[in-house]
Protein backbone atom coordinates (compact mmCIF):
# COMPACT_ATOMS: atom_id res chain seq x y z
CA UNK A 1 0.00 0.00 0.00
CA UNK A 2 1.20 3.47 -0.85
CA UNK A 3 2.30 5.71 1.97
CA UNK A 4 -0.18 8.33 0.80
CA UNK A 5 -3.17 6.23 1.85
CA UNK A 6 -2.30 6.78 5.47
CA UNK A 7 -3.52 10.39 5.04
CA UNK A 8 -6.61 9.26 3.16
CA UNK A 9 -7.43 6.80 5.93
CA UNK A 10 -6.93 9.55 8.48
CA UNK A 11 -9.21 11.93 6.55
CA UNK A 12 -11.92 9.31 6.11
CA UNK A 13 -12.01 8.33 9.76
CA UNK A 14 -11.81 11.96 10.84
CA UNK A 15 -14.76 12.91 8.65
CA UNK A 16 -17.02 10.05 9.72
CA UNK A 17 -19.53 10.53 12.53
CA UNK A 18 -19.91 6.78 12.99
CA UNK A 19 -17.25 4.14 13.51
CA UNK A 20 -15.90 3.41 10.03
CA UNK A 21 -15.11 -0.21 9.16
CA UNK A 22 -11.95 -1.26 7.31
CA UNK A 23 -14.19 -2.43 4.47
CA UNK A 24 -15.83 0.95 4.12
CA UNK A 25 -12.41 2.57 3.89
CA UNK A 26 -11.24 0.06 1.28
CA UNK A 27 -14.43 0.56 -0.75
CA UNK A 28 -14.03 4.33 -0.75
CA UNK A 29 -10.38 4.15 -1.81
CA UNK A 30 -11.08 1.64 -4.58
CA UNK A 31 -14.08 3.61 -5.79
CA UNK A 32 -12.01 6.76 -6.23
CA UNK A 33 -8.65 5.32 -7.28
CA UNK A 34 -9.72 2.22 -9.14
CA UNK A 35 -10.60 -1.39 -8.33
CA UNK A 36 -6.99 -2.52 -8.69
CA UNK A 37 -5.67 -0.27 -5.91
CA UNK A 38 -3.56 -2.32 -3.52
CA UNK A 39 -5.17 -1.87 -0.11
CA UNK A 40 -6.04 -4.58 2.40
CA UNK A 41 -7.59 -4.75 5.85
CA UNK A 42 -4.18 -5.35 7.39
CA UNK A 43 -2.93 -2.11 5.77
CA UNK A 44 -5.73 -0.18 7.41
CA UNK A 45 -4.95 -1.68 10.81
CA UNK A 46 -1.28 -0.87 10.37
CA UNK A 47 -1.97 2.69 9.25
CA UNK A 48 -4.23 3.29 12.22
CA UNK A 49 -1.52 2.02 14.57
CA UNK A 50 1.05 4.30 12.93
CA UNK A 51 -1.30 7.27 13.05
CA UNK A 52 -1.97 6.68 16.74
CA UNK A 53 1.76 6.48 17.34
CA UNK A 54 2.12 9.82 15.63
CA UNK A 55 -0.66 11.42 17.72
CA UNK A 56 1.00 10.11 20.84
CA UNK A 57 4.39 11.56 19.90
CA UNK A 58 2.84 14.90 18.98
CA UNK A 59 0.79 15.06 22.20
CA UNK A 60 -2.47 15.28 20.33
CA UNK A 61 -5.50 15.20 22.63
CA UNK A 62 -7.32 12.69 20.46
CA UNK A 63 -6.59 9.37 18.84
CA UNK A 64 -8.35 6.68 16.82
CA UNK A 65 -10.18 4.05 18.84
CA UNK A 66 -11.49 0.68 17.65
CA UNK A 67 -15.13 0.45 18.48
CA UNK A 68 -18.32 -1.20 17.16
CA UNK A 69 -16.46 -3.02 14.37
CA UNK A 70 -14.85 0.17 13.13
CA UNK A 71 -12.56 3.13 13.75
CA UNK A 72 -13.45 6.53 15.13
CA UNK A 73 -11.57 9.53 16.52
CA UNK A 74 -12.13 10.31 20.20
CA UNK A 75 -10.59 12.62 22.76
CA UNK A 76 -8.49 11.12 25.53
CA UNK A 77 -10.17 10.68 28.89
CA UNK A 78 -8.13 13.38 30.61
CA UNK A 79 -9.96 16.17 28.76
CA UNK A 80 -13.41 14.93 29.79
CA UNK A 81 -13.91 17.58 32.45
CA UNK A 82 -13.19 20.48 30.09
CA UNK A 83 -15.36 19.09 27.32
CA UNK A 84 -18.07 18.14 29.82
CA UNK A 85 -18.27 21.71 30.99
CA UNK A 86 -18.92 22.96 27.47
CA UNK A 87 -21.40 20.34 26.46
CA UNK A 88 -24.11 19.28 28.84
CA UNK A 89 -25.46 16.80 26.40
CA UNK A 90 -22.32 14.79 26.94
CA UNK A 91 -22.94 14.39 30.63
CA UNK A 92 -26.26 12.66 30.07
CA UNK A 93 -27.62 10.14 32.52
CA UNK A 94 -26.04 6.78 33.00
CA UNK A 95 -28.05 3.62 32.54
CA UNK A 96 -29.91 2.31 35.59
CA UNK A 97 -28.85 -0.85 37.41
CA UNK A 98 -31.91 -2.62 36.05
CA UNK A 99 -31.00 -1.60 32.51
CA UNK A 100 -27.38 -2.74 32.89
CA UNK A 101 -28.47 -6.02 34.44
CA UNK A 102 -30.91 -6.72 31.63
CA UNK A 103 -28.35 -5.68 29.01
CA UNK A 104 -25.72 -8.00 30.42
CA UNK A 105 -28.12 -10.94 30.25
CA UNK A 106 -29.16 -10.12 26.68
CA UNK A 107 -25.55 -9.49 25.61
CA UNK A 108 -24.32 -12.85 26.83
CA UNK A 109 -27.32 -14.98 26.06
CA UNK A 110 -28.37 -13.45 22.76
CA UNK A 111 -30.53 -14.21 20.94
CA UNK A 112 -32.79 -14.51 23.97
CA UNK A 113 -36.54 -14.21 24.63
CA UNK A 114 -38.17 -11.93 27.17
CA UNK A 115 -39.40 -14.84 29.34
CA UNK A 116 -35.81 -16.13 29.56
CA UNK A 117 -34.54 -12.70 30.60
CA UNK A 118 -37.29 -12.48 33.19
CA UNK A 119 -36.58 -15.90 34.58
CA UNK A 120 -32.93 -14.97 35.18
CA UNK A 121 -33.72 -11.57 36.64
CA UNK A 122 -36.68 -12.81 38.64
CA UNK A 123 -38.65 -9.70 37.74
CA UNK A 124 -40.99 -8.60 35.01
CA UNK A 125 -38.90 -6.79 32.40
CA UNK A 126 -41.44 -5.29 29.98
CA UNK A 127 -40.61 -1.72 30.75
CA UNK A 128 -36.84 -2.17 30.75
CA UNK A 129 -36.92 -4.01 27.44
CA UNK A 130 -39.05 -1.24 25.93
CA UNK A 131 -36.56 1.33 27.14
CA UNK A 132 -33.57 -0.56 25.77
CA UNK A 133 -35.34 -0.97 22.41
CA UNK A 134 -36.10 2.75 22.35
CA UNK A 135 -32.47 3.58 23.14
CA UNK A 136 -31.46 1.28 20.28
CA UNK A 137 -29.22 -0.74 22.59
CA UNK A 138 -31.11 -3.95 21.79
CA UNK A 139 -33.32 -5.02 18.91
CA UNK A 140 -35.58 -7.82 17.74
CA UNK A 141 -33.60 -10.58 16.07
CA UNK A 142 -36.37 -12.97 15.03
CA UNK A 143 -38.39 -15.67 16.75
CA UNK A 144 -37.73 -18.97 18.49
CA UNK A 145 -39.09 -22.22 17.18
CA UNK A 146 -40.49 -23.15 20.61
CA UNK A 147 -44.12 -23.04 21.71
CA UNK A 148 -45.69 -19.61 21.44
CA UNK A 149 -42.74 -18.62 19.22
CA UNK A 150 -41.67 -15.65 21.36
CA UNK A 151 -39.55 -12.87 19.86
CA UNK A 152 -35.78 -13.00 20.23
CA UNK A 153 -33.70 -10.02 21.34
CA UNK A 154 -30.03 -9.19 20.80
CA UNK A 155 -27.66 -6.24 21.12
CA UNK A 156 -26.96 -3.59 18.44
CA UNK A 157 -23.92 -1.69 17.15
CA UNK A 158 -25.11 1.17 19.34
CA UNK A 159 -24.60 -1.16 22.32
CA UNK A 160 -20.97 -1.72 21.29
CA UNK A 161 -20.47 1.99 20.84
CA UNK A 162 -22.04 2.85 24.18
CA UNK A 163 -19.73 0.50 26.07
CA UNK A 164 -16.67 1.12 23.90
CA UNK A 165 -16.41 -2.44 22.61
CA UNK A 166 -15.04 -3.48 19.23
CA UNK A 167 -17.18 -6.59 19.07
CA UNK A 168 -19.41 -8.61 21.35
CA UNK A 169 -16.49 -11.02 21.85
CA UNK A 170 -14.68 -8.25 23.75
CA UNK A 171 -17.09 -8.52 26.65
CA UNK A 172 -15.45 -10.18 29.63
CA UNK A 173 -16.84 -13.67 30.19
CA UNK A 174 -19.17 -14.09 33.14
CA UNK A 175 -17.53 -16.17 35.82
CA UNK A 176 -18.38 -19.83 36.14
CA UNK A 177 -20.74 -20.69 38.93
CA UNK A 178 -18.13 -22.58 41.00
CA UNK A 179 -15.80 -19.60 40.68
CA UNK A 180 -18.47 -17.38 42.14
CA UNK A 181 -18.67 -19.78 45.05
CA UNK A 182 -14.94 -19.54 45.69
CA UNK A 183 -14.51 -15.85 46.26
CA UNK A 184 -17.56 -14.07 47.40
CA UNK A 185 -16.03 -10.66 47.39
CA UNK A 186 -14.52 -10.09 44.00
CA UNK A 187 -12.27 -7.44 45.46
CA UNK A 188 -10.81 -6.05 42.27
CA UNK A 189 -14.26 -5.46 40.87
CA UNK A 190 -15.43 -3.63 43.95
CA UNK A 191 -12.43 -1.35 43.78
CA UNK A 192 -13.15 -0.48 40.19
CA UNK A 193 -16.76 0.31 40.93
CA UNK A 194 -15.85 2.42 43.88
CA UNK A 195 -13.49 4.41 41.70
CA UNK A 196 -16.24 4.92 39.17
CA UNK A 197 -18.52 6.18 41.87
CA UNK A 198 -15.97 8.68 43.04
CA UNK A 199 -15.53 9.95 39.52
CA UNK A 200 -19.25 10.12 39.19
CA UNK A 201 -19.48 12.33 42.26
CA UNK A 202 -16.78 14.58 40.86
CA UNK A 203 -18.62 14.78 37.55
CA UNK A 204 -21.84 15.70 39.31
CA UNK A 205 -20.04 18.37 41.28
CA UNK A 206 -18.59 19.86 38.13
CA UNK A 207 -22.00 19.85 36.55
CA UNK A 208 -23.66 21.43 39.54
CA UNK A 209 -21.03 24.12 39.60
CA UNK A 210 -21.41 24.88 35.95
CA UNK A 211 -25.20 24.91 36.29
CA UNK A 212 -24.92 27.45 39.06
CA UNK A 213 -22.64 29.53 36.89
CA UNK A 214 -25.23 29.79 34.14
CA UNK A 215 -27.86 31.08 36.53
CA UNK A 216 -25.77 33.91 37.86
CA UNK A 217 -24.52 35.15 34.54
Amino acid at each position, binding site marked *: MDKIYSSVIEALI*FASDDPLTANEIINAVKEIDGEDTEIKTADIEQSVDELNEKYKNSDNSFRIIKIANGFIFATKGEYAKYVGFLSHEKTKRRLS*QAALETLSIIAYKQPITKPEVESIRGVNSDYIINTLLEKNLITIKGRTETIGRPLLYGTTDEFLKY*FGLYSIADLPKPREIDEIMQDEDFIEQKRKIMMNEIEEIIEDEVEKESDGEGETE
Partner: protein
Amino acid sequence: MYKIKLQVFEGPLDLLLFFIKRDEIDIYDIPISKITKEFVEYLEFLKELDLESAGDFILMASTLMQIKVRMLLPKEIDEKGEEIDPRADLVNALLEYKRFKEMTDELSFFESNQRKLNYRGNYTHDAREEAPELDLLLKNVTIYDLIKSFKKALMERPREAIHEIEKINVSIEQQIEFILNLLEDNTELPFIELVKDLNEKMRIIVTFIALLELVKLGKIGLRESEKFNDFVIFGINDG
Protein backbone atom coordinates in the same frame (compact mmCIF):
# COMPACT_ATOMS: atom_id res chain seq x y z
CA MET B 1 -37.47 -4.00 60.22
CA TYR B 2 -34.03 -3.40 58.79
CA LYS B 3 -33.02 -0.13 57.37
CA ILE B 4 -32.58 -1.31 53.83
CA LYS B 5 -32.56 1.14 51.01
CA LEU B 6 -35.33 -0.02 48.74
CA GLN B 7 -33.88 0.89 45.41
CA VAL B 8 -30.86 -1.28 46.08
CA PHE B 9 -32.87 -4.36 45.22
CA GLU B 10 -33.54 -5.05 41.59
CA GLY B 11 -35.84 -7.93 42.47
CA PRO B 12 -36.48 -10.85 44.82
CA LEU B 13 -33.29 -12.67 43.81
CA ASP B 14 -31.30 -9.57 44.59
CA LEU B 15 -32.94 -9.36 48.02
CA LEU B 16 -32.22 -13.03 48.73
CA LEU B 17 -28.58 -12.55 47.74
CA PHE B 18 -28.45 -9.66 50.18
CA PHE B 19 -29.73 -11.86 53.05
CA ILE B 20 -27.24 -14.58 52.10
CA LYS B 21 -24.34 -12.18 52.07
CA ARG B 22 -25.34 -10.30 55.19
CA ASP B 23 -25.79 -13.43 57.29
CA GLU B 24 -22.87 -15.27 55.66
CA ILE B 25 -25.20 -18.06 54.69
CA ASP B 26 -23.91 -21.09 52.76
CA ILE B 27 -25.81 -20.75 49.52
CA TYR B 28 -26.11 -24.56 49.26
CA ASP B 29 -27.69 -24.78 52.70
CA ILE B 30 -30.13 -21.92 52.91
CA PRO B 31 -32.20 -21.91 56.14
CA ILE B 32 -35.49 -21.65 54.31
CA SER B 33 -37.73 -20.97 57.33
CA LYS B 34 -35.62 -18.08 58.53
CA ILE B 35 -35.19 -16.57 55.07
CA THR B 36 -38.87 -16.93 54.27
CA LYS B 37 -39.81 -15.15 57.46
CA GLU B 38 -37.50 -12.24 56.69
CA PHE B 39 -38.61 -12.17 53.10
CA VAL B 40 -42.29 -11.95 54.02
CA GLU B 41 -41.54 -9.19 56.54
CA TYR B 42 -39.82 -7.24 53.83
CA LEU B 43 -42.79 -7.90 51.59
CA GLU B 44 -45.20 -6.26 54.03
CA PHE B 45 -42.98 -3.22 54.00
CA LEU B 46 -42.86 -3.28 50.22
CA LYS B 47 -46.61 -3.61 49.77
CA GLU B 48 -47.12 -0.41 51.70
CA LEU B 49 -44.94 1.36 49.20
CA ASP B 50 -46.97 -0.11 46.33
CA LEU B 51 -43.79 -0.70 44.42
CA GLU B 52 -43.93 -1.69 40.80
CA SER B 53 -42.01 -4.92 41.31
CA ALA B 54 -44.02 -6.07 44.35
CA GLY B 55 -45.71 -8.76 42.28
CA ASP B 56 -42.41 -10.46 41.61
CA PHE B 57 -41.53 -10.37 45.30
CA ILE B 58 -44.87 -11.94 46.17
CA LEU B 59 -44.29 -14.65 43.61
CA MET B 60 -40.93 -15.43 45.21
CA ALA B 61 -42.50 -15.52 48.66
CA SER B 62 -44.89 -18.13 47.38
CA THR B 63 -41.98 -20.16 45.95
CA LEU B 64 -40.16 -19.96 49.27
CA MET B 65 -43.21 -21.21 51.10
CA GLN B 66 -43.60 -24.10 48.71
CA ILE B 67 -39.97 -25.05 49.30
CA LYS B 68 -40.54 -24.80 53.02
CA VAL B 69 -43.50 -27.16 52.83
CA ARG B 70 -41.52 -29.61 50.70
CA MET B 71 -38.68 -29.54 53.24
CA LEU B 72 -41.10 -30.75 55.88
CA LEU B 73 -42.30 -33.68 53.78
CA PRO B 74 -40.39 -36.96 53.38
CA LYS B 75 -37.42 -36.51 51.01
CA GLU B 76 -38.10 -37.07 47.32
CA ILE B 77 -35.75 -39.36 45.40
CA ASP B 78 -34.60 -38.82 41.80
CA GLU B 79 -34.13 -41.56 39.18
CA LYS B 80 -30.53 -42.13 40.34
CA GLY B 81 -31.77 -42.79 43.82
CA GLU B 82 -30.38 -39.53 45.20
CA GLU B 83 -32.31 -37.24 47.46
CA ILE B 84 -33.74 -34.16 45.80
CA ASP B 85 -33.07 -30.96 47.68
CA PRO B 86 -36.23 -28.83 47.31
CA ARG B 87 -33.94 -25.78 47.35
CA ALA B 88 -31.89 -26.86 44.31
CA ASP B 89 -33.79 -24.80 41.69
CA LEU B 90 -33.67 -21.71 43.86
CA VAL B 91 -29.93 -22.11 44.43
CA ASN B 92 -29.35 -22.42 40.70
CA ALA B 93 -31.47 -19.36 40.01
CA LEU B 94 -29.54 -17.39 42.62
CA LEU B 95 -26.17 -18.38 41.20
CA GLU B 96 -27.19 -17.66 37.63
CA TYR B 97 -28.54 -14.28 38.66
CA LYS B 98 -25.35 -13.51 40.57
CA ARG B 99 -23.25 -14.20 37.47
CA PHE B 100 -25.05 -11.50 35.56
CA LYS B 101 -25.22 -9.14 38.46
CA GLU B 102 -21.43 -9.22 38.49
CA MET B 103 -21.40 -8.46 34.78
CA THR B 104 -23.56 -5.45 35.52
CA ASP B 105 -20.60 -4.04 37.44
CA GLU B 106 -18.29 -4.78 34.51
CA LEU B 107 -20.65 -3.03 32.12
CA SER B 108 -20.90 -0.11 34.48
CA PHE B 109 -17.10 0.12 34.40
CA PHE B 110 -17.07 0.12 30.58
CA GLU B 111 -19.81 2.73 30.61
CA SER B 112 -17.74 5.01 32.86
CA ASN B 113 -14.67 4.70 30.68
CA GLN B 114 -16.62 5.36 27.55
CA ARG B 115 -18.30 8.42 28.99
CA LYS B 116 -14.92 10.06 29.41
CA LEU B 117 -14.38 10.00 25.66
CA ASN B 118 -15.77 12.58 23.34
CA TYR B 119 -16.30 12.21 19.63
CA ARG B 120 -15.87 14.92 17.09
CA GLY B 121 -18.63 17.47 17.36
CA ASN B 122 -18.77 19.38 14.12
CA TYR B 123 -18.51 17.96 10.64
CA THR B 124 -20.00 20.84 8.73
CA HIS B 125 -16.82 22.14 7.14
CA ASP B 126 -15.15 18.93 6.05
CA ALA B 127 -14.29 19.28 2.40
CA ARG B 128 -16.45 16.84 0.49
CA GLU B 129 -17.31 16.55 -3.15
CA GLU B 130 -20.96 16.03 -3.86
CA ALA B 131 -21.61 12.59 -5.21
CA PRO B 132 -24.20 12.12 -7.95
CA GLU B 133 -27.49 10.22 -7.78
CA LEU B 134 -28.97 9.23 -4.46
CA ASP B 135 -30.72 6.01 -3.68
CA LEU B 136 -31.62 4.08 -0.60
CA LEU B 137 -30.36 0.95 1.01
CA LEU B 138 -30.81 -0.72 4.33
CA LYS B 139 -28.27 -0.33 7.06
CA ASN B 140 -28.76 -0.94 10.72
CA VAL B 141 -32.49 -1.06 10.21
CA THR B 142 -34.07 -3.80 12.29
CA ILE B 143 -37.47 -5.40 12.72
CA TYR B 144 -38.01 -3.04 15.61
CA ASP B 145 -37.61 -0.02 13.33
CA LEU B 146 -39.97 -1.67 10.90
CA ILE B 147 -42.76 -2.26 13.42
CA LYS B 148 -42.25 1.18 14.93
CA SER B 149 -42.83 2.68 11.51
CA PHE B 150 -45.88 0.52 10.98
CA LYS B 151 -47.40 1.55 14.26
CA LYS B 152 -46.67 5.20 13.50
CA ALA B 153 -48.18 4.93 10.02
CA LEU B 154 -51.35 3.40 11.39
CA MET B 155 -51.67 5.94 14.19
CA GLU B 156 -51.10 8.92 11.96
CA ARG B 157 -53.10 7.68 9.03
CA PRO B 158 -55.60 10.09 7.53
CA ARG B 159 -59.16 9.96 8.79
CA GLU B 160 -60.47 8.04 5.79
CA ALA B 161 -59.92 4.49 6.94
CA ILE B 162 -60.11 1.66 4.45
CA HIS B 163 -63.63 0.59 5.43
CA GLU B 164 -64.83 4.10 4.68
CA ILE B 165 -63.10 4.11 1.35
CA GLU B 166 -65.07 1.08 0.30
CA LYS B 167 -68.27 3.01 0.78
CA ILE B 168 -67.25 5.79 -1.58
CA ASN B 169 -69.03 5.17 -4.82
CA VAL B 170 -66.70 6.26 -7.52
CA SER B 171 -65.49 4.56 -10.63
CA ILE B 172 -62.75 5.31 -13.09
CA GLU B 173 -65.37 5.63 -15.82
CA GLN B 174 -67.20 8.32 -13.84
CA GLN B 175 -64.02 10.25 -13.28
CA ILE B 176 -63.07 10.01 -16.97
CA GLU B 177 -66.37 11.70 -17.74
CA PHE B 178 -65.71 14.26 -15.00
CA ILE B 179 -62.29 15.18 -16.41
CA LEU B 180 -63.47 15.36 -20.02
CA ASN B 181 -66.37 17.60 -18.99
CA LEU B 182 -64.04 19.97 -17.20
CA LEU B 183 -61.72 20.09 -20.20
CA GLU B 184 -64.59 21.18 -22.45
CA ASP B 185 -64.79 24.38 -20.44
CA ASN B 186 -61.04 24.86 -19.93
CA THR B 187 -58.28 24.27 -22.45
CA GLU B 188 -55.83 23.68 -19.67
CA LEU B 189 -56.34 22.53 -16.11
CA PRO B 190 -53.84 22.30 -13.25
CA PHE B 191 -54.12 18.98 -11.40
CA ILE B 192 -54.51 20.75 -8.05
CA GLU B 193 -57.50 22.60 -9.52
CA LEU B 194 -58.98 19.34 -10.75
CA VAL B 195 -58.95 17.65 -7.38
CA LYS B 196 -59.51 20.62 -5.09
CA ASP B 197 -63.19 19.87 -4.54
CA LEU B 198 -62.72 16.16 -4.11
CA ASN B 199 -62.90 15.46 -0.43
CA GLU B 200 -62.13 11.79 -0.11
CA LYS B 201 -58.66 10.50 -0.70
CA MET B 202 -60.02 7.54 -2.64
CA ARG B 203 -61.90 9.84 -5.03
CA ILE B 204 -58.66 11.71 -5.71
CA ILE B 205 -56.82 8.47 -6.29
CA VAL B 206 -59.50 7.20 -8.67
CA THR B 207 -59.44 10.52 -10.49
CA PHE B 208 -55.72 10.19 -10.82
CA ILE B 209 -56.06 6.69 -12.24
CA ALA B 210 -58.70 8.05 -14.66
CA LEU B 211 -56.18 10.69 -15.75
CA LEU B 212 -53.58 8.06 -16.48
CA GLU B 213 -56.16 6.04 -18.40
CA LEU B 214 -56.96 9.13 -20.53
CA VAL B 215 -53.28 9.73 -21.18
CA LYS B 216 -52.93 6.13 -22.28
CA LEU B 217 -55.88 6.53 -24.60
CA GLY B 218 -54.27 9.68 -26.02
CA LYS B 219 -57.23 11.84 -25.08
CA ILE B 220 -55.34 14.21 -22.84
CA GLY B 221 -51.78 15.31 -22.36
CA LEU B 222 -49.85 16.31 -19.26
CA ARG B 223 -47.08 18.81 -18.86
CA GLU B 224 -45.09 20.16 -15.95
CA SER B 225 -46.45 23.17 -14.17
CA GLU B 226 -44.41 26.16 -13.08
CA LYS B 227 -45.74 25.44 -9.63
CA PHE B 228 -43.93 22.95 -7.49
CA ASN B 229 -45.74 19.64 -6.98
CA ASP B 230 -48.32 20.25 -9.68
CA PHE B 231 -48.84 19.50 -13.36
CA VAL B 232 -51.16 20.74 -16.07
CA ILE B 233 -53.73 18.69 -17.98
CA PHE B 234 -54.68 19.65 -21.51
CA GLY B 235 -57.14 18.05 -23.93
CA ILE B 236 -56.06 16.46 -27.20
CA ASN B 237 -58.61 16.53 -30.00
CA ASP B 238 -59.22 13.28 -31.82
CA GLY B 239 -58.04 13.20 -35.37
